[in-house]
């Protein structure tokens, strides 16, 4: 099966806006996707969570669109939309019936040009409360909910832009002011810091004219101030550990490492390692911890790619009740050690490649996913053609590449280990008696030390 190929043009308006057009008439659907080169790494001390709060404000109206009307117009046109914020970037996207392309472009242009004209204290206050409830819902009120925040804090030094979570702190959210919103908009939300991708059923000549007409008159802004040097060694300089006693029924061990940056070919090899370690029931961690030794309820390993300094490679194993947490951690780390020492087998690599190939086709099926990838590669690398080279890059990974990147990434002094332990008296506290021929009984299910 030949790899799917995305044909597109990559152009630039005089004000610096980059745009990508990728026509595909298969379905009567068109996707618009705007990436801004701003994320939580651009936040400064005392203003954590701001990039994401700002993303919410982007749906509160602009000069020609009233509060909540953006979403109402898209939905009434039969479209879907959302926005997301992450460490490196913020994106906004609409998927529309193809005859509604101009509406989506106009809505994006209007907020890029005129957001501050509609800004009000009332709307900011409202969205601040919504975001605080999003934080409670996604993190604070969830079992194990803060693991990713803890991982970031351990893996990146306090003054590093990846140290704090994108959702921010309640204190900083409370402190966000209208002046902060205005300054953030003026600094980061300008055509020269954005990429617009259009994918699907449209005429490129018409779309090009629409983009020139709607976005062309928007003034460029001075380039945002450069970020500090974010480069980091893979080593943390020593293992870092934390124990958390929480209202969780099963203990869970999280491990994390700094990994090569997104765009570094070594990260492709690490992602294939992730597939071999934890992708499905035949994977090494699942096979050993869940199936054979039966010491874990589940096991995972994955990579989160970032462009500044280091990515995150992380995973977890959920400890079966009555099992020694230390044993699960040791078995998990042994598997990381093994893949860093011995090359994976030819069959493991072949299976991983076959799955990656299917995934690559799946990831390009929908116009909105294609648009997101094109915007991503243009924003982060100024190179949207990467969309057509990625599959080959994965398929070119060798067993030695995998071993080598794992050996670089997984040494003991590179890792952080965060262990969640059930609070004493919880529902799983008396679980030692459940079946369990293959189970070692641990003594430390009620360890009390919390960070």
């Amino acid at each position: 099966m030949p790899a799917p190929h995305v044909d597109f043009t990559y152009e630039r308006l005089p004000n610096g806006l980059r745009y990508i057009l990728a026509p595909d008439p298969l379905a009567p659907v068109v996707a618009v996707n705007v990436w801004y080169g701003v994320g939580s790494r651009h936040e400064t001390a005392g203003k954590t969570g701001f990039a994401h709060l700002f993303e919410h404000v982007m749906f509160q109206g602009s000069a020609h669109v009233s509060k909540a009307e953006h979403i109402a117009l898209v939905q009434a046109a039969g479209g879907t939309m959302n926005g997301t914020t992450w460490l490196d970037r913020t994106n906004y996207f609409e998927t529309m019936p193809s005859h509604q392309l101009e509406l989506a472009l106009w809505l994006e242009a209007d907020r890029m040009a005129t957001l501050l004209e509609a800004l009000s204290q009332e709307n900011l206050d409202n969205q601040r409360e919504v975001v605080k409830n999003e934080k409670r819902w996604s993190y604070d009120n969830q079992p194990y909910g803060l693991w990713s925040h803890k991982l970031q804090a351990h893996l990146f030094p306090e003054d590093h832009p990846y140290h704090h979570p994108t959702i921010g702190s309640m204190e900083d959210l409370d402190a966000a002011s209208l002046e902060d919103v205005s300054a953030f908009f003026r600094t980061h939300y300008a055509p020269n810091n954005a990429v617009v991708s259009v994918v699907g059923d449209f005429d490129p000549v018409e779309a090009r004219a629409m983009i020139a007409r709607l976005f062309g008159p928007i003034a460029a802004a001075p380039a945002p101030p450069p970020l500090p040097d974010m480069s980091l060694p893979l080593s943390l300089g020593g293992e870092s550990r934390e124990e958390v006693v929480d209202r969780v029924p099963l203990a869970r061990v999280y491990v994390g490492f700094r990994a090569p940056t997104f765009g570094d070919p070594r990260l492709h090899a690490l992602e294939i390692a992730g597939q071999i370690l934890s992708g499905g029931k035949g994977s090494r961690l699942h096979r050993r911890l869940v199936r054979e030794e039966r010491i874990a309820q589940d096991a995972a390993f994955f990579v989160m790619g970032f462009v500044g300094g280091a990515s995150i490679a992380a995973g977890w194993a959920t400890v079966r009740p009555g099992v020694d947490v230390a044993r699960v951690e040791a078995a998990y780390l042994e598997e990381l050690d093994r893949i860093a020492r011995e090359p994976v087998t030819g069959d493991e690599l072949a299976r991983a490649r076959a799955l990656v190939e299917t995934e690559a086709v799946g990831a390009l099926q929908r116009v909105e996913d294609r648009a997101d990838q094109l915007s991503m590669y243009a924003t982060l690398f100024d190179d949207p053609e990467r969309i057509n080279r990625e599959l080959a890059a994965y398929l070119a990974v060798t067993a030695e590449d995998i071993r080598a990147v794992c050996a670089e990434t997984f040494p003991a002094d590179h890792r952080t280990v965060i262990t969640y332990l059930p609070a004493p008296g919880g529902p799983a506290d008396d679980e030692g008696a459940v079946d369990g021929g293959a189970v070692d009984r641990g003594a430390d299910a009620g360890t009390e030390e919390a960070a």
Partner: protein
Amino acid sequence: MSGEHLATRPTPGTPRAYEFPPFEKTRLANGAELRVVELPGRPLVSVVVAIRRGAADEPPDLAGVSSLAARALSEGTERHDAIGLVEASERLGAELHASAGWDVTSAGVEVLADRLAPAVALLAEMLRTPTFPAHEVERLRDQRMNEVLQAYADPRRRAGIAFDEAIYTEASAYRRLLGGSRVTVPALDPDSLRARHAAWMDPSSTTIVVGGDLAGVDVRGIMEPLFGTAIAAEAGAPPLAVIAASAVDTPTVRIVHRPGAVQTEVRVGHVGLRRRIADFHAVSVMSAILGGLFGSRLNMRLREEKGYTYGAHAGFDLRVHPGPFSASAAVDTDNTVPAVADLLGELRRMRESDVTADELRAAKDYLIGVFPLRFETPGPVVGALAGLATNGLPDDELARYRPGIEAVTVADVRRAAEEHIHADRLAIVLIGDADRIEADVAAAGFGDLEVLRDDAPAG
């Protein structure tokens, strides 16, 4: 500012014609139905085998047997052990899946078209010749026991469990945990799984759906030898008398205490509707206005006006038998009572007054316009065609969807709300910190109050 050029709103172009993809329906030699939908340009083919026997007709003392049997299908076959089976499918870049729902048990695979035949052979092997090894069944049982503990610790899943227990009678199948409880799961042995599997091997209850770019692929030729042969089927357990009876005849409130919770998970509703109803389109529009759209009444009130929540929703879970109707939101603890009051107010308003012409237009335009977006890729098309079979709906149901929505009037929406939202028998379930909310909830007088402290799963 630089926005003068944006003062004129764009007008939409001409909509491109859209038809739900036509499909071809035949029967294999043993009577199983085959539905094939050709989707040019979609090389990732989706295959689903849907068997119209789900967890709803399990014997109560074996609750969870369908789910556990579905999970255990891939634990070994007459030809492969579990690892051999997964490795064989991975070499094809394919992942086999199987799961039991309330009304249907499904197994399937997504695979590139040129590997369809060997992937479907593995699917048939898994579905038709599982061995249910005792050692693996024991492990899956243990995992399920732990999963129940985890569900009780997660406020969203806990809310779903508490809500189903509040609205359905003790005898109703839909009241139970789909995957089985800590009381029933220990009894599920390989023999009970085999019996459940035997009941699935009934061609007259089986629909196979294949969708994708199938140019040059002889789908029937692939399926007939794999799925068309007779297999020893056993009669299933007799259907339960009670699947979805309402337990609520007067408003009730149940707080499940979650010490220190910073939010309260709110669920409000009652036993709702089956999928096969005459006013499906009116119910769809009404639900969208109440709690489906971003601009729905609930979301606008609780999120965009009050900031109580990240999102408020409502809708009907339409099943073969009446599934739940619920309105839901996670609200910060201190605003629990005002949020519930607002939510109840919106349910009442839906019944007591007409929606505006603008609300009706927006909801209809959304449902009609988003329909082709939902079916861009094979997976959802195949899933929808399997769903027609599960619910006994006619072949042209999806083709008639958009005209059906377009025909809905303001009066239809009002009637749907009056007939299907029952303000007099709402169950209100709150997963939150009882120490902080109980007194205010009691004072608010929403209904008879019950507080569950020391929450833990039975068994």
